[in-house]
Protein backbone atom coordinates (compact mmCIF):
# COMPACT_ATOMS: atom_id res chain seq x y z
CA UNK A 1 0.00 0.00 0.00
CA UNK A 2 1.74 3.14 -1.22
CA UNK A 3 1.61 6.36 0.76
CA UNK A 4 2.56 9.64 -0.90
CA UNK A 5 3.16 12.88 0.97
CA UNK A 6 2.70 16.20 -0.84
CA UNK A 7 4.32 19.35 0.53
CA UNK A 8 4.09 23.06 -0.22
CA UNK A 9 6.40 25.42 1.64
CA UNK A 10 8.63 28.50 1.72
CA UNK A 11 6.36 30.95 -0.05
CA UNK A 12 3.08 31.36 1.81
CA UNK A 13 0.51 28.96 3.28
CA UNK A 14 2.70 25.90 3.62
CA UNK A 15 0.81 22.64 3.87
CA UNK A 16 1.00 18.87 3.76
CA UNK A 17 -1.34 16.30 2.20
CA UNK A 18 -1.25 12.53 2.39
CA UNK A 19 -2.53 10.13 -0.26
CA UNK A 20 -2.82 6.47 0.75
CA UNK A 21 -3.96 3.85 -1.75
CA UNK A 22 -5.07 6.62 -4.10
CA UNK A 23 -7.28 8.38 -1.55
CA UNK A 24 -6.62 11.77 0.04
CA UNK A 25 -6.75 10.78 3.70
CA UNK A 26 -5.43 13.92 5.39
CA UNK A 27 -4.37 17.46 4.57
CA UNK A 28 -3.71 20.55 6.64
CA UNK A 29 -2.03 23.94 6.55
CA UNK A 30 0.88 24.57 8.88
CA UNK A 31 -0.69 27.84 10.12
CA UNK A 32 -3.41 25.91 11.96
CA UNK A 33 -0.81 24.28 14.20
CA UNK A 34 1.85 26.99 14.42
CA UNK A 35 -0.92 29.58 14.96
CA UNK A 36 0.82 32.00 12.57
CA UNK A 37 -1.47 33.02 9.72
CA UNK A 38 -0.17 32.17 6.23
CA UNK A 39 2.85 30.45 7.82
CA UNK A 40 5.35 29.69 5.07
CA UNK A 41 7.79 27.58 7.07
CA UNK A 42 8.39 23.89 6.38
CA UNK A 43 5.13 22.17 7.44
CA UNK A 44 6.57 20.00 10.18
CA UNK A 45 3.42 19.91 12.29
CA UNK A 46 1.07 19.46 9.34
CA UNK A 47 3.17 16.49 8.18
CA UNK A 48 3.16 15.03 11.69
CA UNK A 49 -0.63 15.33 11.80
CA UNK A 50 -1.10 13.66 8.38
CA UNK A 51 1.13 10.73 9.29
CA UNK A 52 -0.48 10.32 12.71
CA UNK A 53 -3.96 10.40 11.21
CA UNK A 54 -3.11 7.60 8.80
CA UNK A 55 -1.05 5.73 11.42
CA UNK A 56 1.93 5.75 9.08
CA UNK A 57 5.55 6.32 10.02
CA UNK A 58 7.85 8.39 7.80
CA UNK A 59 9.75 5.15 6.91
CA UNK A 60 6.60 3.85 5.22
CA UNK A 61 6.31 6.74 2.77
CA UNK A 62 6.93 5.73 -0.82
CA UNK A 63 7.48 9.27 -2.03
CA UNK A 64 7.50 12.88 -0.97
CA UNK A 65 6.41 15.27 -3.73
CA UNK A 66 7.30 18.94 -3.52
CA UNK A 67 4.86 21.34 -5.19
CA UNK A 68 7.34 23.22 -7.35
CA UNK A 69 10.75 22.93 -8.98
CA UNK A 70 13.27 24.94 -6.95
CA UNK A 71 15.96 25.04 -9.63
CA UNK A 72 13.60 26.54 -12.21
CA UNK A 73 12.22 29.01 -9.71
CA UNK A 74 15.68 30.05 -8.61
CA UNK A 75 16.88 30.62 -12.18
CA UNK A 76 13.76 32.69 -12.83
CA UNK A 77 14.65 34.84 -9.82
CA UNK A 78 18.21 35.11 -11.10
CA UNK A 79 17.24 35.94 -14.68
CA UNK A 80 14.73 38.52 -13.49
CA UNK A 81 17.39 40.18 -11.38
CA UNK A 82 19.88 40.17 -14.26
CA UNK A 83 17.30 41.71 -16.59
CA UNK A 84 16.86 44.77 -14.37
CA UNK A 85 20.25 44.95 -12.57
CA UNK A 86 21.54 46.91 -10.79
CA UNK A 87 17.95 47.75 -9.77
CA UNK A 88 16.57 45.16 -7.43
CA UNK A 89 19.97 44.31 -5.95
CA UNK A 90 18.81 44.78 -2.37
CA UNK A 91 15.74 42.67 -2.93
CA UNK A 92 17.81 39.95 -4.60
CA UNK A 93 20.34 39.94 -1.78
CA UNK A 94 17.50 39.65 0.71
CA UNK A 95 16.20 36.44 -0.81
CA UNK A 96 19.55 34.91 -1.76
CA UNK A 97 20.57 33.52 1.65
CA UNK A 98 17.21 31.77 1.92
CA UNK A 99 17.65 30.21 -1.49
CA UNK A 100 21.19 29.08 -0.84
CA UNK A 101 20.35 27.96 2.67
CA UNK A 102 17.35 25.63 2.41
CA UNK A 103 15.13 26.36 -0.60
CA UNK A 104 17.42 25.38 -3.44
CA UNK A 105 18.67 22.02 -2.24
CA UNK A 106 15.18 20.86 -1.38
CA UNK A 107 16.05 17.14 -1.34
CA UNK A 108 18.50 17.83 1.46
CA UNK A 109 16.05 20.11 3.27
CA UNK A 110 13.27 17.51 3.13
CA UNK A 111 15.56 14.77 4.42
CA UNK A 112 16.79 17.05 7.19
CA UNK A 113 13.25 17.78 8.34
CA UNK A 114 12.20 14.15 7.91
CA UNK A 115 15.31 12.18 8.94
CA UNK A 116 13.32 8.96 9.28
CA UNK A 117 12.53 8.76 5.56
CA UNK A 118 13.85 5.54 4.11
CA UNK A 119 16.66 5.81 1.52
CA UNK A 120 14.24 4.23 -0.98
CA UNK A 121 11.68 6.99 -0.49
CA UNK A 122 11.62 9.03 -3.68
CA UNK A 123 11.70 12.81 -3.50
CA UNK A 124 9.96 14.20 -6.55
CA UNK A 125 9.24 17.69 -7.84
CA UNK A 126 6.29 18.90 -9.84
CA UNK A 127 6.01 22.29 -11.51
CA UNK A 128 3.96 24.79 -9.52
CA UNK A 129 1.13 25.04 -12.03
CA UNK A 130 1.15 21.29 -12.62
CA UNK A 131 0.55 20.91 -8.89
CA UNK A 132 -2.35 23.36 -9.11
CA UNK A 133 -3.68 21.59 -12.21
CA UNK A 134 -3.43 18.23 -10.44
CA UNK A 135 -5.30 19.64 -7.43
CA UNK A 136 -7.97 20.91 -9.79
CA UNK A 137 -8.38 17.91 -12.10
CA UNK A 138 -7.32 14.80 -10.17
CA UNK A 139 -9.46 15.87 -7.20
CA UNK A 140 -12.42 16.90 -9.37
CA UNK A 141 -15.60 14.90 -10.01
CA UNK A 142 -14.90 14.85 -13.79
CA UNK A 143 -13.63 11.99 -15.95
CA UNK A 144 -12.39 14.60 -18.39
CA UNK A 145 -12.23 18.35 -18.16
CA UNK A 146 -10.68 21.61 -19.22
CA UNK A 147 -8.27 22.92 -16.58
CA UNK A 148 -7.57 26.55 -15.74
CA UNK A 149 -4.92 27.55 -13.21
CA UNK A 150 -4.32 31.20 -12.35
CA UNK A 151 -2.11 32.65 -9.62
CA UNK A 152 0.74 35.10 -9.00
CA UNK A 153 3.64 33.09 -10.33
CA UNK A 154 5.14 29.63 -10.06
CA UNK A 155 8.42 28.92 -11.83
CA UNK A 156 7.68 30.93 -15.00
CA UNK A 157 4.00 30.24 -15.63
CA UNK A 158 1.44 32.58 -14.11
CA UNK A 159 -1.67 31.07 -15.74
CA UNK A 160 -2.20 27.85 -17.66
CA UNK A 161 -4.90 26.14 -19.68
CA UNK A 162 -4.84 22.36 -19.75
CA UNK A 163 -6.90 19.28 -20.39
CA UNK A 164 -7.41 16.24 -18.21
CA UNK A 165 -8.58 12.79 -19.28
CA UNK A 166 -8.82 9.83 -16.90
CA UNK A 167 -5.72 10.04 -14.72
CA UNK A 168 -3.64 12.08 -17.17
CA UNK A 169 -3.54 15.79 -17.65
CA UNK A 170 -1.54 18.09 -19.84
CA UNK A 171 -0.93 21.82 -19.77
CA UNK A 172 -1.47 23.20 -23.27
CA UNK A 173 -0.95 26.93 -22.95
CA UNK A 174 0.61 29.30 -20.49
CA UNK A 175 1.17 32.98 -19.71
CA UNK A 176 4.65 33.62 -18.39
CA UNK A 177 6.05 35.88 -15.70
CA UNK A 178 6.01 38.87 -15.31
CA UNK A 179 2.64 39.02 -17.06
CA UNK A 180 0.35 37.79 -14.32
CA UNK A 181 -3.30 38.27 -13.40
CA UNK A 182 -2.50 37.31 -9.81
CA UNK A 183 0.28 39.88 -9.52
CA UNK A 184 -1.92 42.53 -11.15
CA UNK A 185 -4.64 41.91 -8.55
CA UNK A 186 -2.07 41.74 -5.73
CA UNK A 187 -0.53 45.05 -6.84
CA UNK A 188 -3.92 46.72 -6.42
CA UNK A 189 -4.42 44.87 -3.13
CA UNK A 190 -1.21 46.49 -1.87
CA UNK A 191 -2.22 49.86 -3.36
CA UNK A 192 -5.48 49.76 -1.41
CA UNK A 193 -3.57 49.09 1.83
CA UNK A 194 -4.14 45.35 2.25
CA UNK A 195 -1.51 42.65 2.64
CA UNK A 196 -0.41 40.84 -0.51
CA UNK A 197 -1.20 37.10 -0.59
CA UNK A 198 -3.80 37.47 2.12
CA UNK A 199 -5.83 40.67 1.66
CA UNK A 200 -7.03 39.98 -1.90
CA UNK A 201 -10.43 38.84 -0.67
CA UNK A 202 -10.84 42.18 1.11
CA UNK A 203 -10.31 43.98 -2.18
CA UNK A 204 -12.99 41.77 -3.70
CA UNK A 205 -15.34 42.58 -0.79
CA UNK A 206 -14.63 46.29 -1.14
CA UNK A 207 -15.31 46.38 -4.89
CA UNK A 208 -19.16 46.47 -4.78
CA UNK A 209 -19.01 49.73 -2.82
CA UNK A 210 -17.23 51.50 -5.65
CA UNK A 211 -17.75 52.66 -9.21
CA UNK A 212 -15.30 51.22 -11.75
CA UNK A 213 -14.23 54.64 -12.95
CA UNK A 214 -10.58 53.61 -13.45
CA UNK A 215 -11.42 50.60 -15.62
CA UNK A 216 -10.66 52.46 -18.85
CA UNK A 217 -7.31 53.72 -17.56
CA UNK A 218 -6.33 50.23 -16.41
CA UNK A 219 -7.20 48.72 -19.79
CA UNK A 220 -5.53 51.46 -21.80
CA UNK A 221 -2.40 52.01 -19.72
CA UNK A 222 -1.67 49.05 -17.48
CA UNK A 223 -2.71 45.83 -19.13
CA UNK A 224 -3.20 44.69 -22.69
CA UNK A 225 -5.96 42.07 -22.68
CA UNK A 226 -6.26 39.84 -25.73
CA UNK A 227 -9.32 37.96 -26.92
CA UNK A 228 -8.01 34.64 -25.53
CA UNK A 229 -7.53 36.14 -22.05
CA UNK A 230 -3.75 36.35 -22.33
CA UNK A 231 -2.35 39.59 -20.97
CA UNK A 232 0.71 41.79 -21.09
CA UNK A 233 1.37 44.13 -18.19
CA UNK A 234 2.92 47.53 -18.78
CA UNK A 235 5.80 47.17 -16.33
CA UNK A 236 6.39 50.92 -16.25
CA UNK A 237 3.57 51.04 -13.71
CA UNK A 238 4.65 48.16 -11.45
CA UNK A 239 7.65 47.66 -9.21
CA UNK A 240 7.42 44.00 -8.18
CA UNK A 241 10.45 43.01 -10.27
CA UNK A 242 12.80 45.27 -8.36
CA UNK A 243 11.41 45.59 -4.86
CA UNK A 244 8.86 44.42 -2.37
CA UNK A 245 6.77 47.45 -3.30
CA UNK A 246 4.23 46.32 -5.86
CA UNK A 247 3.30 49.57 -7.59
CA UNK A 248 5.37 52.34 -9.17
CA UNK A 249 4.80 56.06 -8.47
CA UNK A 250 3.68 56.33 -12.13
CA UNK A 251 0.63 54.24 -11.21
CA UNK A 252 -0.11 56.47 -8.22
CA UNK A 253 0.07 59.49 -10.53
CA UNK A 254 -2.20 57.83 -13.08
CA UNK A 255 -4.85 57.05 -10.46
CA UNK A 256 -4.38 60.41 -8.76
CA UNK A 257 -3.57 59.35 -5.20
CA UNK A 258 -0.89 57.72 -3.11
CA UNK A 259 -1.39 54.13 -1.89
CA UNK A 260 -3.64 53.82 1.15
CA UNK A 261 -1.81 53.28 4.43
CA UNK A 262 -2.72 49.95 6.08
CA UNK A 263 -5.42 50.27 8.74
CA UNK A 264 -6.21 53.88 7.80
CA UNK A 265 -9.78 54.95 7.04
CA UNK A 266 -10.98 53.56 3.69
CA UNK A 267 -12.11 56.37 1.44
CA UNK A 268 -14.55 55.89 -1.41
CA UNK A 269 -11.68 56.48 -3.85
CA UNK A 270 -10.14 53.11 -2.92
CA UNK A 271 -13.51 51.39 -3.32
CA UNK A 272 -13.59 52.80 -6.86
CA UNK A 273 -10.09 51.44 -7.49
CA UNK A 274 -11.18 48.05 -6.12
CA UNK A 275 -14.30 48.04 -8.32
CA UNK A 276 -12.19 48.88 -11.37
CA UNK A 277 -9.57 46.16 -10.96
CA UNK A 278 -12.25 43.61 -9.99
CA UNK A 279 -14.11 44.31 -13.23
CA UNK A 280 -10.94 44.01 -15.31
CA UNK A 281 -9.98 40.76 -13.54
CA UNK A 282 -13.41 39.26 -14.13
CA UNK A 283 -13.13 40.10 -17.81
CA UNK A 284 -9.68 38.47 -18.09
CA UNK A 285 -10.78 35.30 -16.30
CA UNK A 286 -13.94 35.04 -18.36
CA UNK A 287 -11.93 35.29 -21.56
CA UNK A 288 -9.47 32.68 -20.30
CA UNK A 289 -12.29 30.30 -19.39
CA UNK A 290 -13.98 30.74 -22.78
CA UNK A 291 -10.66 30.14 -24.50
CA UNK A 292 -10.15 26.99 -22.41
CA UNK A 293 -13.50 25.75 -23.73
CA UNK A 294 -12.51 26.51 -27.33
CA UNK A 295 -9.14 24.77 -26.92
CA UNK A 296 -10.39 21.66 -25.13
CA UNK A 297 -14.00 21.38 -26.38
CA UNK A 298 -14.86 20.04 -22.94
CA UNK A 299 -18.21 20.72 -21.25
CA UNK A 300 -16.44 20.63 -17.88
CA UNK A 301 -14.07 23.12 -16.28
CA UNK A 302 -12.00 22.73 -13.14
CA UNK A 303 -9.93 25.49 -11.67
CA UNK A 304 -7.21 26.17 -9.08
CA UNK A 305 -4.56 28.75 -8.19
CA UNK A 306 -5.00 31.64 -5.77
CA UNK A 307 -7.06 33.69 -8.24
CA UNK A 308 -9.65 30.88 -8.27
CA UNK A 309 -10.62 32.11 -4.78
CA UNK A 310 -12.11 35.20 -6.45
CA UNK A 311 -15.65 33.90 -6.09
CA UNK A 312 -17.26 36.89 -7.79
CA UNK A 313 -15.31 36.08 -10.96
CA UNK A 314 -16.13 32.38 -10.45
CA UNK A 315 -19.84 33.21 -10.40
CA UNK A 316 -19.47 34.96 -13.75
CA UNK A 317 -17.52 32.02 -15.22
CA UNK A 318 -20.30 29.70 -14.07
CA UNK A 319 -22.99 31.82 -15.71
CA UNK A 320 -21.21 33.16 -18.78
CA UNK A 321 -18.31 30.95 -19.90
CA UNK A 322 -20.50 28.27 -21.48
CA UNK A 323 -19.42 25.23 -19.47
CA UNK A 324 -22.03 22.73 -18.30
CA UNK A 325 -20.14 21.88 -15.12
CA UNK A 326 -17.65 23.88 -13.10
CA UNK A 327 -15.59 22.68 -10.13
CA UNK A 328 -13.11 24.72 -8.11
CA UNK A 329 -10.51 23.18 -5.83
CA UNK A 330 -11.51 24.40 -2.32
CA UNK A 331 -7.86 24.82 -1.32
CA UNK A 332 -7.19 26.73 -4.53
CA UNK A 333 -4.11 28.55 -3.21
CA UNK A 334 -0.65 27.16 -2.63
CA UNK A 335 -1.78 24.94 0.26
CA UNK A 336 -3.90 22.94 -2.19
CA UNK A 337 -0.88 22.50 -4.45
CA UNK A 338 0.50 20.10 -1.82
CA UNK A 339 -2.59 17.96 -2.34
CA UNK A 340 -2.20 18.16 -6.12
CA UNK A 341 1.45 17.14 -5.83
CA UNK A 342 0.54 14.11 -3.71
CA UNK A 343 -2.22 12.99 -6.11
CA UNK A 344 0.01 13.44 -9.16
CA UNK A 345 2.74 11.48 -7.36
CA UNK A 346 0.31 8.65 -6.69
CA UNK A 347 -0.73 8.26 -10.35
CA UNK A 348 2.93 8.56 -11.43
CA UNK A 349 4.09 5.79 -9.11
CA UNK A 350 1.06 3.53 -9.60
CA UNK A 351 0.82 3.17 -13.38
CA UNK A 352 -1.89 0.51 -13.03
CA UNK A 353 -4.10 2.68 -10.85
CA UNK A 354 -7.35 3.84 -12.39
CA UNK A 355 -9.17 7.07 -11.70
CA UNK A 356 -12.95 6.81 -11.64
CA UNK A 357 -14.49 9.80 -9.90
CA UNK A 358 -18.12 8.80 -10.71
CA UNK A 359 -19.35 12.32 -10.16
CA UNK A 360 -17.80 12.64 -6.68
CA UNK A 361 -14.82 14.85 -5.96
CA UNK A 362 -11.88 13.50 -3.97
CA UNK A 363 -12.01 16.15 -1.24
CA UNK A 364 -14.42 14.57 1.30
CA UNK A 365 -16.03 17.98 1.71
CA UNK A 366 -12.52 19.41 2.38
CA UNK A 367 -12.83 17.92 5.88
CA UNK A 368 -9.31 16.53 5.91
CA UNK A 369 -7.83 17.99 9.09
CA UNK A 370 -7.67 16.88 12.74
CA UNK A 371 -10.68 16.03 14.86
CA UNK A 372 -10.98 15.74 18.62
CA UNK A 373 -12.72 13.10 20.67
CA UNK A 374 -15.20 13.81 23.47
CA UNK A 375 -12.57 12.93 26.04
CA UNK A 376 -10.06 15.35 24.49
CA UNK A 377 -12.68 18.12 24.56
CA UNK A 378 -13.56 17.27 28.17
CA UNK A 379 -9.87 17.37 29.09
CA UNK A 380 -9.50 20.88 27.60
CA UNK A 381 -12.60 22.12 29.41
CA UNK A 382 -11.36 20.67 32.64
CA UNK A 383 -7.94 22.34 32.24
CA UNK A 384 -9.68 25.70 31.86
CA UNK A 385 -12.15 24.92 34.66
CA UNK A 386 -14.81 25.83 32.11
CA UNK A 387 -18.52 25.77 32.95
CA UNK A 388 -20.47 23.66 30.47
CA UNK A 389 -23.45 21.42 29.82
CA UNK A 390 -23.18 18.14 27.96
CA UNK A 391 -26.25 17.48 25.85
CA UNK A 392 -27.37 14.59 23.67
CA UNK A 393 -27.87 15.36 19.99
CA UNK A 394 -31.62 15.97 20.24
CA UNK A 395 -31.29 18.43 23.10
CA UNK A 396 -28.21 20.09 21.59
CA UNK A 397 -29.78 20.84 18.21
CA UNK A 398 -33.01 22.09 19.77
CA UNK A 399 -31.12 24.35 22.14
CA UNK A 400 -28.70 25.75 19.54
CA UNK A 401 -31.62 26.43 17.18
CA UNK A 402 -33.42 28.38 19.92
CA UNK A 403 -30.29 30.33 20.73
CA UNK A 404 -29.67 31.26 17.09
CA UNK A 405 -33.30 32.31 16.66
CA UNK A 406 -32.92 34.56 19.71
CA UNK A 407 -30.02 36.40 18.01
CA UNK A 408 -27.09 34.75 19.77
CA UNK A 409 -23.70 34.27 18.10
CA UNK A 410 -22.37 30.74 18.45
CA UNK A 411 -18.90 29.28 17.99
CA UNK A 412 -19.27 25.84 16.45
CA UNK A 413 -16.51 23.20 16.44
CA UNK A 414 -17.39 19.73 15.15
CA UNK A 415 -15.51 16.85 13.53
CA UNK A 416 -12.54 17.25 11.20
CA UNK A 417 -11.03 20.66 10.47
CA UNK A 418 -11.35 22.06 6.97
CA UNK A 419 -8.46 22.13 4.49
CA UNK A 420 -8.20 25.43 2.62
CA UNK A 421 -8.98 29.01 3.54
CA UNK A 422 -12.72 28.62 4.20
CA UNK A 423 -14.42 27.39 7.33
CA UNK A 424 -17.19 25.20 5.97
CA UNK A 425 -19.13 24.46 9.13
CA UNK A 426 -16.72 22.51 11.33
CA UNK A 427 -14.69 25.49 12.63
CA UNK A 428 -17.31 28.22 12.20
CA UNK A 429 -19.08 31.06 13.93
CA UNK A 430 -22.82 30.88 13.26
CA UNK A 431 -25.51 33.55 13.48
CA UNK A 432 -28.97 34.42 12.23
CA UNK A 433 -28.84 35.65 8.62
CA UNK A 434 -32.22 37.39 9.00
CA UNK A 435 -30.94 39.82 11.61
CA UNK A 436 -30.12 43.29 10.25
CA UNK A 437 -27.73 43.92 13.15
CA UNK A 438 -25.76 40.72 12.83
CA UNK A 439 -23.24 41.84 10.19
CA UNK A 440 -21.87 44.83 12.08
CA UNK A 441 -22.09 42.97 15.41
CA UNK A 442 -19.98 40.12 14.07
CA UNK A 443 -17.49 42.40 12.31
CA UNK A 444 -16.87 44.82 15.12
CA UNK A 445 -17.42 42.89 18.35
CA UNK A 446 -16.46 39.36 17.46
CA UNK A 447 -14.16 39.29 14.45
CA UNK A 448 -12.66 42.75 15.16
CA UNK A 449 -12.46 43.54 11.46
CA UNK A 450 -13.57 46.23 9.01
CA UNK A 451 -17.30 46.92 9.03
CA UNK A 452 -17.65 46.76 5.22
CA UNK A 453 -16.80 43.10 5.03
CA UNK A 454 -19.66 40.77 4.14
CA UNK A 455 -20.52 37.40 5.63
CA UNK A 456 -21.40 34.26 3.78
CA UNK A 457 -24.59 32.21 4.09
CA UNK A 458 -24.92 28.47 4.52
CA UNK A 459 -28.12 27.02 3.13
CA UNK A 460 -29.64 23.56 2.88
CA UNK A 461 -28.62 22.28 -0.54
CA UNK A 462 -32.19 21.30 -1.39
CA UNK A 463 -33.44 24.83 -0.60
CA UNK A 464 -30.76 26.92 -2.29
CA UNK A 465 -32.88 28.00 -5.25
CA UNK A 466 -35.65 29.22 -2.91
CA UNK A 467 -33.37 31.92 -1.53
CA UNK A 468 -30.58 32.46 -4.07
CA UNK A 469 -30.35 32.73 -7.84
CA UNK A 470 -28.47 29.45 -7.97
CA UNK A 471 -29.55 25.88 -8.47
CA UNK A 472 -26.39 23.80 -8.33
CA UNK A 473 -24.20 22.76 -5.41
CA UNK A 474 -21.66 25.20 -3.99
CA UNK A 475 -20.21 23.12 -1.16
CA UNK A 476 -16.98 25.10 -0.86
CA UNK A 477 -18.33 28.66 -0.70
CA UNK A 478 -16.58 29.65 -3.91
CA UNK A 479 -19.46 30.98 -5.99
CA UNK A 480 -21.26 34.29 -5.71
CA UNK A 481 -24.84 34.78 -6.87
CA UNK A 482 -27.72 37.19 -6.22
CA UNK A 483 -30.00 36.86 -3.20
CA UNK A 484 -33.63 36.41 -4.23
CA UNK A 485 -36.01 39.21 -3.28
CA UNK A 486 -33.09 41.51 -2.41
CA UNK A 487 -33.35 45.09 -3.59
CA UNK A 488 -31.82 45.67 -7.03
CA UNK A 489 -28.03 46.10 -7.14
CA UNK A 490 -27.08 49.62 -6.19
CA UNK A 491 -23.93 51.61 -5.74
CA UNK A 492 -23.66 52.78 -2.15
CA UNK A 493 -20.76 54.74 -0.75
CA UNK A 494 -18.72 53.16 2.04
CA UNK A 495 -19.64 56.04 4.31
CA UNK A 496 -23.28 54.90 4.44
CA UNK A 497 -24.26 52.78 7.39
CA UNK A 498 -24.27 49.08 6.54
CA UNK A 499 -27.78 48.90 7.98
CA UNK A 500 -29.14 51.22 5.32
CA UNK A 501 -27.59 49.59 2.35
CA UNK A 502 -29.96 46.88 1.26
CA UNK A 503 -33.45 45.57 1.69
CA UNK A 504 -33.07 41.85 1.71
CA UNK A 505 -34.83 39.02 3.51
CA UNK A 506 -31.32 37.94 4.55
CA UNK A 507 -29.64 41.28 5.35
CA UNK A 508 -26.72 39.84 7.31
CA UNK A 509 -25.44 37.86 4.33
CA UNK A 510 -26.45 40.16 1.48
CA UNK A 511 -23.67 42.33 0.16
CA UNK A 512 -24.28 45.89 -0.94
CA UNK A 513 -24.83 44.77 -4.55
CA UNK A 514 -27.44 42.19 -3.55
CA UNK A 515 -25.04 39.26 -3.85
CA UNK A 516 -23.95 36.49 -1.48
CA UNK A 517 -21.11 33.96 -1.38
CA UNK A 518 -23.18 30.83 -0.91
CA UNK A 519 -22.25 27.51 0.69
CA UNK A 520 -24.72 24.71 0.13
CA UNK A 521 -24.85 22.04 2.83
CA UNK A 522 -25.70 18.45 2.04
CA UNK A 523 -26.47 15.64 4.41
CA UNK A 524 -23.71 13.29 3.25
CA UNK A 525 -20.68 15.49 3.93
CA UNK A 526 -22.10 17.68 6.72
CA UNK A 527 -24.75 15.63 8.57
CA UNK A 528 -24.65 17.71 11.76
CA UNK A 529 -24.70 21.10 10.06
CA UNK A 530 -27.48 19.83 7.78
CA UNK A 531 -29.48 18.81 10.83
CA UNK A 532 -28.93 22.18 12.48
CA UNK A 533 -30.11 24.04 9.38
CA UNK A 534 -33.12 21.71 9.04
CA UNK A 535 -34.15 22.30 12.65
CA UNK A 536 -33.60 26.04 12.26
CA UNK A 537 -35.85 25.98 9.20
CA UNK A 538 -38.49 23.98 11.06
CA UNK A 539 -38.48 26.58 13.83
CA UNK A 540 -38.19 29.76 11.77
CA UNK A 541 -39.05 28.86 8.17
CA UNK A 542 -35.54 29.93 7.11
CA UNK A 543 -32.94 27.30 6.12
CA UNK A 544 -30.11 29.86 6.03
CA UNK A 545 -27.52 30.88 8.64
CA UNK A 546 -24.40 33.03 8.66
CA UNK A 547 -21.20 31.01 8.51
CA UNK A 548 -17.94 32.78 9.15
CA UNK A 549 -14.59 31.31 10.07
CA UNK A 550 -13.92 30.67 13.75
CA UNK A 551 -11.10 33.15 14.37
CA UNK A 552 -10.46 36.83 14.93
CA UNK A 553 -8.57 39.24 12.72
CA UNK A 554 -4.97 38.16 12.18
CA UNK A 555 -5.57 34.68 13.61
CA UNK A 556 -5.62 31.41 11.67
CA UNK A 557 -8.91 29.50 11.89
CA UNK A 558 -9.04 27.61 15.21
CA UNK A 559 -7.87 24.02 15.16
CA UNK A 560 -8.17 22.56 18.65
CA UNK A 561 -10.85 22.89 21.35
CA UNK A 562 -8.28 24.92 23.29
CA UNK A 563 -7.88 27.42 20.41
CA UNK A 564 -11.67 27.63 20.20
CA UNK A 565 -12.17 28.18 23.94
CA UNK A 566 -9.55 30.96 24.03
CA UNK A 567 -11.09 32.68 21.01
CA UNK A 568 -14.56 32.35 22.59
CA UNK A 569 -13.39 33.91 25.86
CA UNK A 570 -11.53 36.77 24.17
CA UNK A 571 -14.48 37.85 21.99
CA UNK A 572 -18.11 38.65 22.65
CA UNK A 573 -19.43 35.39 21.26
CA UNK A 574 -22.48 34.32 23.28
CA UNK A 575 -22.16 30.53 23.22
CA UNK A 576 -19.63 27.89 22.24
CA UNK A 577 -20.43 24.38 21.05
CA UNK A 578 -17.58 21.83 21.11
CA UNK A 579 -18.98 18.52 19.90
CA UNK A 580 -21.87 17.94 22.30
CA UNK A 581 -20.65 20.39 24.95
CA UNK A 582 -22.45 23.73 25.22
CA UNK A 583 -20.81 26.66 26.98
CA UNK A 584 -22.42 29.99 27.84
CA UNK A 585 -20.15 33.01 27.81
CA UNK A 586 -21.43 34.63 30.97
CA UNK A 587 -20.84 31.55 33.11
CA UNK A 588 -17.12 31.18 32.41
CA UNK A 589 -14.44 31.71 35.11
CA UNK A 590 -12.25 33.77 32.76
CA UNK A 591 -12.77 37.17 31.20
CA UNK A 592 -9.53 36.99 29.19
CA UNK A 593 -7.11 34.23 28.20
CA UNK A 594 -3.70 34.48 26.58
CA UNK A 595 -4.17 33.86 22.86
CA UNK A 596 -2.08 31.07 21.37
CA UNK A 597 -1.63 32.79 18.01
CA UNK A 598 0.85 35.40 16.82
CA UNK A 599 -1.32 38.14 15.27
CA UNK A 600 -0.42 38.89 11.65
CA UNK A 601 -1.38 42.01 9.76
CA UNK A 602 -3.97 41.17 7.13
Amino acid at each position, binding site marked *: MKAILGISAFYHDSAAALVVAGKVVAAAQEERFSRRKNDESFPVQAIAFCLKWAAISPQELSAVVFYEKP*IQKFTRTLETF*LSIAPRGLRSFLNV*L*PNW*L*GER*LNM*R*KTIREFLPELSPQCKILFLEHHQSHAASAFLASPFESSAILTVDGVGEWATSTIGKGEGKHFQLLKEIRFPHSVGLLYSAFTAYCGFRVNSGEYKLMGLAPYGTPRFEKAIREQLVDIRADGSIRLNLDYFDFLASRRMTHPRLHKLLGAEPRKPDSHIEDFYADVAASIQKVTEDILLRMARHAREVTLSPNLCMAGGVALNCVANGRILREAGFENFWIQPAAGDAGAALGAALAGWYELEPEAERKPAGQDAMSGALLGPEFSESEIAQTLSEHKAVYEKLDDTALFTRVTELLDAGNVIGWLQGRMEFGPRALGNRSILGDARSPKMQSLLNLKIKFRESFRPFAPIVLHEKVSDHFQMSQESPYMLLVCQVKKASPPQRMALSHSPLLRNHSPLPAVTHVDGSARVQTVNQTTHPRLHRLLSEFEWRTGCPVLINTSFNVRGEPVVCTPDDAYRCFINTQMDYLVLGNYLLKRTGQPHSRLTPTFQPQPD
Partner: protein
Amino acid sequence: MWELAKEFLQFLRKEKKWWLAPLIFILLLLGALIVFTSGSVLAPLMYPFL
Protein backbone atom coordinates in the same frame (compact mmCIF):
# COMPACT_ATOMS: atom_id res chain seq x y z
CA MET B 1 25.39 19.17 -3.12
CA TRP B 2 26.74 17.10 -6.06
CA GLU B 3 23.26 15.89 -6.84
CA LEU B 4 22.06 19.48 -6.92
CA ALA B 5 24.94 20.51 -9.20
CA LYS B 6 24.07 17.60 -11.51
CA GLU B 7 20.43 18.64 -11.64
CA PHE B 8 21.48 22.19 -12.43
CA LEU B 9 23.61 20.97 -15.32
CA GLN B 10 20.73 18.88 -16.65
CA PHE B 11 18.44 21.88 -16.37
CA LEU B 12 20.86 24.22 -18.15
CA ARG B 13 21.33 21.69 -20.96
CA LYS B 14 17.60 21.14 -21.38
CA GLU B 15 16.77 24.84 -21.34
CA LYS B 16 19.90 25.81 -23.31
CA LYS B 17 20.79 28.43 -20.72
CA TRP B 18 24.55 27.83 -20.52
CA TRP B 19 25.15 31.52 -20.09
CA LEU B 20 23.78 31.19 -16.55
CA ALA B 21 26.38 28.54 -15.65
CA PRO B 22 29.20 30.80 -14.34
CA LEU B 23 26.85 32.79 -12.16
CA ILE B 24 25.18 29.70 -10.78
CA PHE B 25 28.58 28.13 -10.15
CA ILE B 26 29.61 31.14 -8.05
CA LEU B 27 26.33 31.18 -6.16
CA LEU B 28 26.47 27.45 -5.47
CA LEU B 29 30.00 27.93 -4.18
CA LEU B 30 28.72 30.63 -1.87
CA GLY B 31 25.91 28.30 -0.80
CA ALA B 32 28.43 25.56 -0.03
CA LEU B 33 30.51 28.01 1.98
CA ILE B 34 27.45 28.98 3.99
CA VAL B 35 26.63 25.34 4.66
CA PHE B 36 30.17 24.40 5.65
CA THR B 37 30.84 27.53 7.70
CA SER B 38 27.49 27.71 9.48
CA GLY B 39 28.13 27.24 13.17
CA SER B 40 31.82 28.03 12.73
CA VAL B 41 33.63 31.25 13.62
CA LEU B 42 33.60 32.19 9.94
CA ALA B 43 29.78 32.42 9.77
CA PRO B 44 29.47 36.09 10.83
CA LEU B 45 32.05 36.97 8.16
CA MET B 46 30.11 35.22 5.39
CA TYR B 47 26.64 36.70 5.81
CA PRO B 48 27.57 40.37 5.17
CA PHE B 49 28.58 39.32 1.63
CA LEU B 50 25.01 38.18 1.04
